[in-house]
């Protein structure tokens, strides 16, 4: 009796405002548009076929490329950060972690908006590059290389293009990468690194052949945690991207708002969902395999 009182409200809410809406979306994807608001469910697969039209397929490919690139940039930027935090003193550790997490508790829209001011033509990013440019020109002019720079600084176009979108995704989702990396590096058996260094490996060799392989579970979680939301992002390319930086999220949003083609938008949402499920299933299978390997032979899985 008490059990039902505890369970039912949540079950009811989840069913009514999550599973039913998703089912409706799934059904709408099998429908056809008759008139501006009327959708007749015919069980057609045409919307899925249209979602794989070369035009949309190229948007899918571009989304995978942009979010994949941003995910890799996140990994490269985050690894030294996570390493530094996990080796920091116990007093400093919570402070650094807090500093990584805090920006992430700010509204997504506000953070994206904040980036616009930094990236635009007369923004701080360009001011910084201009300062470097002036310094380089002053340094190189005596060598007769001043001519390389031209008379005046031309602002670099960073906003309203794909670079801005990659930067935006990196900016917004960086904490998702740092946290799982930190969690893995924190638990890592440091004597293995010590042993490698004692046995004559250089810091560089130790990093690539001991630290990185041991951090693989964290790397994989981080890649997934950044890649999934990045793939579906709509706000970042919408505000920071140019006309050609459309991603799946933008196309889906358009089908539900301006273009008013809900069946196509629903089919695209489900393609995105199936892709997400495939990634999550891969992750579950991987961690399952790891757990089995750990049970089979403790100590042998560390460097595998």
């Amino acid at each position: 009796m008490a059990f039902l009182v505890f369970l039912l409200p949540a079950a009811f809410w989840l069913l009514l405002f999550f599973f039913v809406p998703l089912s409706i979306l799934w059904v709408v994807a099998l429908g056809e548009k008759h008139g501006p608001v009327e959708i007749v469910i015919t069980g057609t697969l045409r919307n899925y076929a249209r979602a794989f039209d070369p035009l949309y397929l190229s948007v899918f490919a571009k989304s995978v490329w942009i979010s994949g690139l941003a995910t890799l940039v996140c990994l490269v930027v985050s690894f030294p950060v996570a390493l530094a935090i996990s080796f920091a003193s116990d007093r400093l550790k919570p402070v650094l972690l807090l500093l990584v997490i805090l920006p992430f508790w700010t509204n997504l829209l506000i953070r994206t908006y904040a980036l616009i001011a930094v990236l635009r033509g007369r923004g701080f990013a360009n001011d910084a590059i201009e300062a470097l440019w002036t310094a380089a020109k002053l340094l190189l002019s005596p060598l007769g290389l001043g001519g390389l720079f031209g008379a005046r600084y031309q602002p670099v176009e960073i906003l309203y293009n794909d670079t801005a979108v990659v930067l935006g995704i990196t900016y917004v989702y960086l904490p998702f990468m740092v946290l799982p990396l930190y969690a893995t590096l924190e638990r890592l058996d440091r004597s293995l690194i010590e042993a490698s260094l004692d046995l004559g490996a250089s810091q560089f060799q130790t990093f690539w052949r001991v630290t990185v392989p041991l951090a693989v579970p964290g790397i994989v979680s981080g890649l997934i945690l950044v890649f999934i939301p990045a793939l579906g992002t709509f706000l970042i390319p919408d505000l920071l991207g140019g006309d050609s930086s459309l991603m799946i999220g933008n196309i889906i949003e358009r089908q539900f708002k301006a273009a008013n083609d809900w069946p196509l938008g629903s089919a695209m949402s489900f393609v995105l969902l199936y892709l997400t499920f495939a990634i999550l299933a891969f992750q579950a299978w991987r961690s399952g395999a790891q757990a089995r390997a750990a049970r089979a032979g403790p100590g042998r899985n560390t460097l595998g």
Partner: protein
Amino acid sequence: MGSHLDYSRRLWVRLWLLLVFVFLYAPIVALVAFSFNDSKRNIVWQGFTLDYYAKAWNNASLFEAFTNSLVIAFVSTLVSTVIGALLALALWRFRFPFKPVAEGAVALPIVIPEICMGVALLAFFSRVGWPNDLVWPLNLLPIVAGHVAFSFPFVTVVVRARMAGFDRSLEEASKDLGASEWQTFRHVTVPYMRPGLVAGALLATTLSLDDFIITFFTSGPETLTFPVKVYSMVRFGATPEVNAASTVLIAITLALTLVAMRLQGSGAVAAEAGSREKRP
């Protein structure tokens, strides 16, 4: 232990950390600073002013949007906290068939791309014929429904973590001493749960205030909410007014987050953030 393991003391690592923190904070600091800038164009510093706060305050539609978002956050927090905590108790206390399935189902709103949930809710409210022209505050209900759906799983995680440290013999002692089931729940279980409840509630408030996508897709055409209002203002062109209103929202969420961290210890919030996969 060798000092060669002290990566955090190496110069290049320190410089890297510094650069990353500048990258993370400079845009937000600039946004806040320029809300006090006495210039229409957000580019050069002209002097300190509070004019834009006054303007944002007197901007009727911005003010209405802000109030609506606070009301949404408040109601969503109440509902999420109650149903999230009840679910946490159910998962903590009982064994039942398909429990892993239930746990997975609760995590789903957290892991799927937000835009999918947004358009699903849009399709849902339109297909069930939810009227668009309800009076305030009923017109906010679709947004609240969506916010609760992605917030209560977080409350469940926080409360369940708190209950993991609960000594069941306290309940048995209470019953042995003659308390009823309800009295035991009310005077033994709930007081122990309270820090988890408060932290979960603060988390739900922050999640609701931070959300853009779900609000964007569930607001009716006539409903003003802060993120949607700011979105249209940003598309129209950045103004210091937007900066001022954003600064107020940042201050509110920052304060809530810091209080929540105080209550649970920052480690728990870090773990939390890690499980907060899709946000924001």
